């Protein structure tokens, strides 16, 4: 009998594919150079810089008040927290005494920004795994928050509400009521998120065990925010280096140990609950007082180096200012969470399928201007 032997030299061919910069799943102008074998990802190499605006260089010629508004354009989904980061750095450098009212308002708006960012993320996450309806439900709730911001700050996305020394203007008289309405509304909607997407068997199959990041790798890659916390790495700046009014509130750091896509998803859902609880604790007792401390028209930081970390919706944002005593910083560096989080994409996506890469990328929650700065 004749035996047929398959050609043992047969080799599946790896091929190369460009994902982005105009791809629906890359959420902006991120370009991923993928090496694929069939459906299996062999290598992911991000190609960045499509919207790099050199904010750090611009900061070297701008005054400190002007720098604040540039940070809106980095991670635009947590614009207000970015503003706060720069303001805190400047205030710490000047050793300004900030009124309690300002601290509380900043924290409330910061947490609302986090919820709003996570709402958008939730919608987009659902869309990335194929459930398009989540997008609209996420946006519906985010819209309420945007209205609150618009009423108080005047803008929906790039708010520029913080100035060194406090807030640009006081909160709107309707603010407290609207926030309370939102809390009651959102508390009924969050369980709906779970019923629609979290518990869904297809979603769980898609995300569990996908894109696993170990704790050691998370620390080594500088992962922060929900990405780090899903790997069991306690990295919440709000806990470890509390700023503004965060030392006055009690909340739990959302921690998971699995480190997979589903864990990152759950951490963010948990964070929305925690943020709601922080806002609830503060909203009823916003202290009376000034909303702004007068600063000099031209702020000059004393010679020295200043570093301030805050927890944005994406993770740890660091502002590093080297001042030589002039009206502009000598060097200003933003340590953006997205940049570090992106660097681990290759590490966790290799070996998965294209669908896994998309789901993983959705839970890294990348905002490209934050990476490109």
């Amino acid at each position, binding site marked *: 009998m004749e035996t047929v032997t398959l050609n043992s030299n047969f080799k599946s061919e790896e091929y190369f594919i460009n994902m982005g910069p105009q791809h629906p799943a890359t959420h902006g102008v991120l370009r991923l150079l993928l090496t694929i074998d069939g459906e299996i990802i062999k290598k992911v190499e991000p190609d960045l810089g499509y919207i790099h605006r050199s904010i750090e260089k611009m900061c070297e010629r701008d005054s400190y008040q002007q720098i604040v*508004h540039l940070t809106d354009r980095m991670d635009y989904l947590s614009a207000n927290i970015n503003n706060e980061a720069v303001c805190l750095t400047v205030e710490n450098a000047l050793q300004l005494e900030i009124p309690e009212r300002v601290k509380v308002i900043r924290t409330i708006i910061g947490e609302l920004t986090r919820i709003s960012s996570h709402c958008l993320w939730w919608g987009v996450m659902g869309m990335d795994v194929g459930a398009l309806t989540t997008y609209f439900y996420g946006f519906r709730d985010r819209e309420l928050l945007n209205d609150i911001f618009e009423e108080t700050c005047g803008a929906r996305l790039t708010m520029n509400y913080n100035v060194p020394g406090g807030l640009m203007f006081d909160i709107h008289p309707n603010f407290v009521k609207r926030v309370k309405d939102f809390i009651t509304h959102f508390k009924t909607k969050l369980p709906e998120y779970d019923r629609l997407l979290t518990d869904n068997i297809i979603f769980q199959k898609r995300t569990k065990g996908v894109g696993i990041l170990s704790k050691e790798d998370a620390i080594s890659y500088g992962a922060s925010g929900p990405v780090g916390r899903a790997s069991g790495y306690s990295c919440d700046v709000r806990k470890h280096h509390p700023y503004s009014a965060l030392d006055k509130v009690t909340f739990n750091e959302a921690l998971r140990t699995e480190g997979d896509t589903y864990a990152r998803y759950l951490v963010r859902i948990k964070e929305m609950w925690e943020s709601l609880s922080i806002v609830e604790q503060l909203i009823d007792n916003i202290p009376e007082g000034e909303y702004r401390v007068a600063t000099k028209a031209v702020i000059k930081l004393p010679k020295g180096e200043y570093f301030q970390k805050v927890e944005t919706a994406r993770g740890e944002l660091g502002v590093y200012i080297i001042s030589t005593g002039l009206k502009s910083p000598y060097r200003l560096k933003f340590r953006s969470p997205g940049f570090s989080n992106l660097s681990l994409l290759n590490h966790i996506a290799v070996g998965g399928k294209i669908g896994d890469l998309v789901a993983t990328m959705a839970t890294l929650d990348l905002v490209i201007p934050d990476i490109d700065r």
Partner: protein
Amino acid sequence: MSYFSDIYKGIKTLLTGMSVTGKYFVTSKKGAITQQYPDNRETLKMFDRFRGEVIMPHNENNEHRCTGCQKCEIACPNGTIEIIWDRGIDENTGKKKKKIDKFVYHLSMCTMCGLCIDVCPTDAIKWGQNFENSVYDRTALTRVLNEPGSKLQAGVED
């Protein structure tokens, strides 16, 4: 038997999900969050603090409050504001005094940061609520905010 319980649980979660969307489908008539924009122009009211564009309010005598101190021009991060000023004779005192000739505002460069309005000592400029700023020619976005023939409101400088 986990094979069958998996199927049961799976189908149950799917039906739960469908009940959520189904609920919205049934109540879709009143639940729609779409704003039918060009149709609702009359009822669409922006918030008071909405940052649409920078405007310079004039009173009924065609007087504005801008002294031409140029603080806004310095505060602006993008060079959006250009103040062309001149020295004129003050009618009351007879001294030479700085006054604005043209307050040029490039809306195309404005990032709506609000620093100019924040820094203005005389509240001469304010946020306008107009958001329909699209034009076919970008030169239309360069505006002169002070109206022709307008002058400084009395008592602003005191």
